[in-house]
């Protein structure tokens, strides 16, 4: 690495991590208003453990994201398996719809979904939030799994077929195991994206039913909150762990590729 490269990379990392580092540091600062001088304390973490609102919201977020991730992975993997076998206009059109789901502002999607739920009489609610979140995380799952399926060696499937495996059997015994790392990876990705999605939950959950992003939002609007710092640190730690897992699964799929 040249000196210029080092400077460029170091400065951009500093910019990317400044807001996160500040929150982590402040979670150990005993000041109620996030001001200096800094004095080390763990009191916000013990406060966090006693804060029922935050714990309920965390549990709700985990539960919601779990259901959404499972549904999105199932539906998305099926969709990806179909998509790689299609070369017609429908395939290209479905790619367009998936990209649109990622690119259209969630604000616009969120209020549009709410209109549909109001029309069919469900309105705001957990079911609405699950369906809406499945829709916005679906593209992530489809693209991750699709990329993996495209990279699979067709010869393996052909070999299985020529040795007498039925289409269904070759799918379950060859395609699924080979694509497994990416399927698990897409589940984690779907979980993280749903867990952190504020906008869709803001419009589709009933007023007063708060997931973690909504709880953080409502506390931040009233000002600085040291308990949120502690919670944010815990959430960040969880996100790092999931990111590391994702990375390992990525390495896993590479392992499959190299040794096939």
């Amino acid at each position: 690495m040249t000196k210029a490269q080092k400077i460029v990379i170091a400065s951009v990392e500093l910019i990317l991590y400044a807001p996160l580092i500040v929150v982590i540091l402040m979670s150990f600062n005993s000041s109620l208003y996030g001001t200096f001088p800094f004095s080390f304390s763990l009191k916000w973490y013990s406060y966090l453990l006693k804060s029922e609102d935050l714990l309920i919201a965390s549990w709700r977020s985990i539960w919601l994201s779990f259901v959404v991730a499972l549904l999105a992975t199932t539906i998305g993997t099926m969709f990806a398996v179909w998509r790689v076998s299609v070369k017609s206009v429908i395939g290209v059109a479905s790619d367009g719809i998936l990209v649109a789901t990622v690119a259209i502002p969630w604000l616009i999607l969120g209020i549009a979904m709410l209109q549909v739920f109001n029309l069919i009489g469900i309105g705001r609610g957990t079911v609405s939030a699950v369906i809406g979140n499945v829709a916005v995380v679906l593209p992530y799952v489809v693209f991750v799994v699709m990329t993996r399926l495209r990279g699979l060696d067709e010869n393996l499937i052909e070999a299985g077929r020529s040795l007498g495996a039925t289409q269904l059997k070759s799918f379950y015994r060859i395609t699924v195991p080979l694509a497994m790392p990416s399927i698990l990876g897409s589940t984690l990705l779907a979980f993280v994206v749903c867990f952190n999605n504020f906008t869709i939950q803001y419009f589709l959950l009933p007023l007063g039913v708060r997931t973690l992003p909504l709880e953080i939002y409502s506390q931040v609007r009233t000002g600085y909150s040291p308990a949120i710092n502690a919670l944010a640190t815990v959430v960040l730690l969880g996100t790092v762990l999931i990111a590391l897992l994702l990375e390992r699964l990525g390495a896993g799929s590479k392992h499959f590729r190299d040794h096939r």
Partner: protein
Amino acid sequence: MKTNRRWFLSLPGFAILASMLVIPLLLQVLTSLGLAKNLSEFPRAGSWRRIFESTLYLRLLYRSMWSGLVATAIAIVIAWPAGWAISRVPKGIQKVLLGTVILPYLVSTVLLIYGFFVLLAGNGPLMSVISLTNLISADSSILYTHTATVLMLAYEALPVLILVIYASSESIDQALIDSARSLGATRLKRFFHIILPLTMPGLVAGSALVFVPAVGSFVESQILGGPNGILLGNVISDQIRRINDPAFGAALSLMLLSAVLTAAYVFGRLLKPLYRRSNLA
């Protein structure tokens, strides 16, 4: 597998996409026209007329678009050297660096906004450091100004842009740059004649991916922007969460969506000659 017998696998996916993307957006058109009368307690016609009766909403649209554009531009200026630099480092370090770039993308926007809020707060960490220079006092800050919102949007755009620029830089052969150098091309010339044209297609796509959500943002301005910093997104969100006027909200959101998609398309077309002319690609 000649005939496609997998079509049924796509059904749940299409059902979700149709019911949560296509139908909702079409329904929004009807709602904005006041035609979906049984949907809400307060159906109102004339929402479109109301938008154009004053210049207020057009000015807000302009402000949202301009903020998105400035934020994207700031992010590009920071992301370009970074994405390029990451594409030129040894593979082992590269993997770690890419991981650190992706991580903030996985963190909740609300948390990042909150981090910015803490960072910028008067007497907070950043201002305490800056005030050591005695140029400005520690309790003054750009928090609660429009500048804070735009910087936040630029920050959020960084991971995607760095990754996109990295991806298009990575395929550029180092030999190409080295030979240009040995033929006497200056650093600037190498940038404008090789790196810029070759990374342009990826950059245009990446910019659209960050510009569109930035224009439709509303949480950033609500928390960081202060009383005079609202964007069109805030007005739209308020129609649903506070005022309960879905028709007007639908009209405003459709105006925002069509404006931003048109803008993204026009910019894409305008920038195309920049890289089409290059025959290196």
